[in-house]
Every structure is written in structure tokens, then in C-alpha cells.
């Protein structure tokens, strides 16, 4: 993906750019809001990562200007200003995701990749498939190896999010955000325990596990490799 990074802290910018490059993305770095805006008006990055406190033009104004200019690329705010009201401001300005500093690079990567994929804009799917598990989005039902699996509403939402991002890491905080609409750290085992319930239904009765834990921060769904 072509990723625009607007961050005035040189060290963070360098870490992030190097990390994204290692994952195979092309990164353009700016430390100034005005320069970033000028660049964006004739280049079309796939995803933009923007700090809020920037010299030249602050992040909120930058995103408003981009949206006003008809630029629709997904934007993620990466900022130390991550209180509830500040997040609301960010989304109102036209951001698609919001990540507070300090952050884990893996969290940023997972969110950026999810944003880049979201833009893919393929026809709406009706059935999600991972290996021998399929989720019928119309009938709200899951079947694995021909066997119907009963799911509670939350378990269904959790599974849908994981399957939509199959092959890609979904972090704990993304799950909290999207499934429970919660933007704070709720304590360590809240998500794990929900995922382990889901695993008990999806994976345990079968030979091959589909939900995999990624280090200590998220999950990824994929079939046997």
C-alpha cells in the first residue's frame, strides 16, 4: 500500500516508516501539515496516518481540508489527544480510525491494514469463508464441516469481524472498539475470555484451529498453512 505519514516527532516517524516499509508498504513522510496537504492534493495515498498536533497546519484542519477537496482516502489519527471528546472531534473532521499515543506498532499496523482493505470496495459479501468454516451474513448462521454452530449475538459479531479480516491481525483494542464500542482499557482478560468461549465452539470440536493468538495483542483467522 501507499501510506502517507504526517508526524512531526522524528523518532516516532522513523520507527513507523521503517516498520511499515518492512511490511512491504511504501511510505511518504511529512513533518508539517501544510506540506502534507500540498502533497496530497495531487497524490492519492491508500491510507493516511496523521498526527493532530503539527506545525504549519494542525491535523484536524488538514483532514477537513482533504475532505473538502474531495479526497476520500482512509485517515487514521495517531495522536496523544485521545480523550473521548477529542476522538469525537477527530471522527467529525472526517477520520476513519483513531489511535492514541503511546501505541504498539503492531496495533497501528493492524489498523492501517484493516483500513487499506476496507477501501477495497468489492461487492458486499453474503457469505464469509475461512477454510471449512462459513458464516452466512444473511441467515446469521455459522457452519463448520457441515455442522451448524450456535452462536450468541456477541460471539457472532466477534466471529464476523475476525472473518472479514481473515489473514490479517485484529487487535484486542480493535475488537473492543468495534464489537463493544469501548475505547478504554477494560482490564486484561476481558477480550481473551470472550475469544476463548468462541474458540470452544468454533475450534475445539474440530481438528484444525482457525483462530490464532498473535503474540499478546490480537488474533488472526486462517486455515492450515
Amino acid at each position, binding site marked *: 500500500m501507499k501510506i502517507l505519514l504526517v508526524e512531526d516527532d522524528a523518532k516516532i516517524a522513523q520507527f513507523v516508516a521503517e516498520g511499515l516499509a518492512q511490511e512491504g508498504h511504501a511510505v511518504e513522510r511529512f513533518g508539517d501539515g501544510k506540506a502534507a496537504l500540498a502533497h496530497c492534493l495531487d497524490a492519492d495515498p491508500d491510507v493516511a496516518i496523521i498526527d493532530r498536533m503539527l506545525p504549519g497546519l494542525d491535523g484536524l484542519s488538514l483532514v477537513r481540508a482533504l475532505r473538502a477537496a474531495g479526497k476520500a482516502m482512509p485517515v487514521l489519527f495517531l495522536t496523544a489527544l485521545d480523550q473521548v471528546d477529542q476522538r469525537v472531534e477527530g471522527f467529525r473532521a472526517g477520520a476513519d480510525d483513531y489511535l492514541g499515543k*503511546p501505541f504498539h506498532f503492531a496495533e497501528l499496523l493492524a489498523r492501517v491494514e484493516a483500513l487499506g482493505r476496507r477501501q477495497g470496495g468489492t461487492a458486499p459479501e453474503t457469505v464469509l469463508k475461512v477454510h471449512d468454516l462459513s458464516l452466512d451474513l444473511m441467515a446469521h448462521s455459522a457452519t463448520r464441516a457441515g455442522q451448524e454452530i450456535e452462536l450468541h449475538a456477541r460471539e457472532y459479531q466477534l466471529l464476523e469481524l475476525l472473518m472479514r479480516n481473515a489473514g490479517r491481525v485484529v487487535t484486542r483494542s480493535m475488537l473492543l472498539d468495534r464489537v463493544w464500542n469501548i475505547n478504554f482499557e477494560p482490564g486484561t482478560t476481558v477480550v481473551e475470555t470472550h475469544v476463548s468461549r468462541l474458540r470452544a465452539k468454533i475450534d475445539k470440536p474440530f481438528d484444525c484451529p482457525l483462530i490464532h493468538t498473535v503474540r499478546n495483542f490480537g488474533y488472526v483467522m486462517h486455515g492450515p498453512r
Partner: protein
Amino acid sequence: MARARLTSGLTSGAAFRGALYGIAAFCGVLFLSGIAVLMTARHAVMSDIQAGLAAQLAFVQEMAAANEPAAFGETVSDLARRFAAANMVVAVYDAEGVVAANAALPPGTATWKIVEDVATVYGERLDRVLLLTGRAGPYTVVLGRDLAGVARVSHAIAGVLALVGAAVVAALIAIGWVLSARSERALGRIEAVLDRVSRGEFGARAPEAADPDQIDRVAAKINLHLDRLEILMEEARSRAASIAHDLRTPLARAMLTAERLLAEVGEGPGAGAAADLAGELDGLARIFDAILRIARLEGAREALPAAPVDLGEVAAEVADLYGAAAEAAGQSLCAEGHAWTAGDPVLLTQLAANLAANAVAHAGPGASIRLSAAMRDGRAVLACADDGPGIPEAERARVLDPFVRLEGAGEGTGLGLTFVRAAAERHGAELRLGGNGPGLRVEVIFPAKLADM
């Protein structure tokens, strides 16, 4: 907790006490000067009487010298009759006995003498009589004057003094009462302001009069100190918030470096230390986040953006979120009831989540945890009750303070309940920690007026 009061009732106010001291002093002076006036007046009246009696004795002596005994006897009898009309008594004796008398008077030897209860020949009784005894030739003359007039004068003077005293005392009490009530009201206003400040309303100020008295000057002084206190608090709070905020960027760099270190050492030597470092930095980030959230709530000046919220729904969502974690810890967690209030739904969810997380972390295995929403006395109440070990009564106030972790409470930042208190206060709600016989019951009691929405 007993609290010292500035005001303590009208009759014990300083102004009223001052008036009482004034009254006591006035009464003392009035009493002493009254006695002096009485004595002087009595003395003057007595001197008059004595002079009169002496003149009359001289007259009788003259008559005794100038008249034959028969004529003298007649004159004296005539005198005795006339004296009687003026409440005067007289008795004249010679060697044989009484020559003439209008009362039974003892012939005695003392010149001046006061006798009581004297009977006149006309059947009157005189209470006190001053007698003057003297010789007139061969006769012994006893002249007397009723002292009832002296007593009347004394009574009249004492009466006037008592009346004046009573009037002045009443006036002083009234003045003292009015002054006391005025200073009481002024002190009451100052006390109310200090009460509000101690409850955290640092903007409260005592009213200052245009024409200031001592109390107004004290009020102005208190206001000046409150201004300084408010500025200091504000500075301390914003400094804490800005320190936490400013540290986020370096912390982000540190976390990214730790992540890179983790990736570079892989499974090699130093992997454990790198993982520990990353874990510690995560913990630090969580503490900064919690401090910032609390500081933001405590420093908020603008009105809370409030919407109608069903606390029962909040409780149900939170129970859904923490249910699996509680089950994994061998606990049960359920939500029940409904109660509408006005508030910030995100903040209220976070509040309830902190209560649930606290209960799951500390209630221990086998505990049953109940989140409930209910209306009580017209106020919405969100409660989290468990049957775990609870918190000893003496410790309950303390656990609301930042970074307080009770012995054996395990992991945690010690900021969860501090956040709950800050979020409750932001809603004008009251936070109460109580026993659940056994266990802990935390109640957040929302103000009644919000429940009307």
C-alpha cells in the same frame, strides 16, 4: 465527622456576648451609684428632720423659761395636738410624770434615738420615729418625727433607678441581639462558602459589602485566599495533566523501541528482559492514560453534555462485556433493573466497567456479582454488589484515593475507583461504599433533578 462551626446560634455569638458583658457592667455601676444616691438623699432628709427637731426643742425650751408651769402645760398640750396633725410626736415629763403627750414615748436618756412602732393617742401607729430628748428647765422633753417620709423618698429613688436600669438593659439586649443576628448572618454566609469550597466548589466566594465592617473584611480576606487556592489547585491539576500528556510522546518512542528490541533479540539472550521492559512500559502507559482521564474529569469546567441514559442498559452492556471474564474466574455476573438518568453514556459505561472490573478482580472465586439499576426516593441508583471479602469500613474512604491498593488486592493501578469517583462527581452523583453482608456494595446515586429528564 464533627465539624467546627462558625455560627453557633444567636445567643452565643460574639456580639451578643459583648452585649451581655455590657449589661452586667451597667447593672453593677447602676447598683453602686443607686446606693450612693440613696445614702446621700437619706442623709439630706435626715439632716433636715434633725434640724427641725432641734429648732422645735429650742422653742419648747424657750416656752418653758418664759411661762408659768400651768401656762406651759397648756401650751405644750396645744402643741401636742397640732404636732399630731403633722405626724409629729411629743411628750413632756416633769418630776411627777407626764405633763403633756400625744404618744407613748419613753423618757430615755440618749439625745437621738430611733424607736419603732410608736402608738399615738389618736390610735395611729408609726413604724419608725426619730426621737430627740432634751431638758427644758425642770422638764424632760421628747420630740419625735415619723420617718415614713424618708422611706418614701428612698423607695421613689430606688424605683426610678430600677426603671431606668430595666429600660437600658432591655435596649442593650435588643441592640446586642440585632448586632448578633447581623454578624451571625454574615458568618453564616462565610461558613456556607467554606462548606462549598470543602466540597470541591472552588469557585464559591463570600459576598462582600460595599460598606465593609470587620466581618466583611474577614470575608474579603477569605476570598483572597480562596482565589489563590483556586489558582494553585488549577495549576497543580493542569500541571499533572500536562506532564502526563507531554510524557506520551517520549513514552510512545520508548514503547516502539522496546518493540523493536523484542523483535531483534527474538528468542536470543535478553528476550526475557526485553519482554519485561515492554510489559512495564505498557503498565506505565495505562497509568498515564488513567491519570489523564481523571484529571480531565476533575478539571472539566463546562457543563456535562448529558443525554437520557438507561443505567440498566449500561449495566447490561457491562455485564455482557465482563461476563466471560467473571465466568473464567469462577464468578457469576448479572445485571438487572432499569433507571433513567441524564448523563454521558460513554462515561457512564466506563464508570460501570470500572465497578465491574473492580468486583471481578477482588471478589474472589465463587463470588456472585450483581450490577443493578433502580430508582430510590426519586433518584437513579447504579449499584455493584458482590459477596466477596469486601473492604473493612475504615478503609472504604481511602480506596477512592489515587494509587491506594489494599493489602492482598493483587494487580491494578489503584486508579479504578478514583476514576469512578471523578466520573460520579462529574454527574453530580454521590458515591457510597458499603457492606453487602458479606462483600462490597458500591452505589452511585444520581441527583433527583436529572431523573426527571
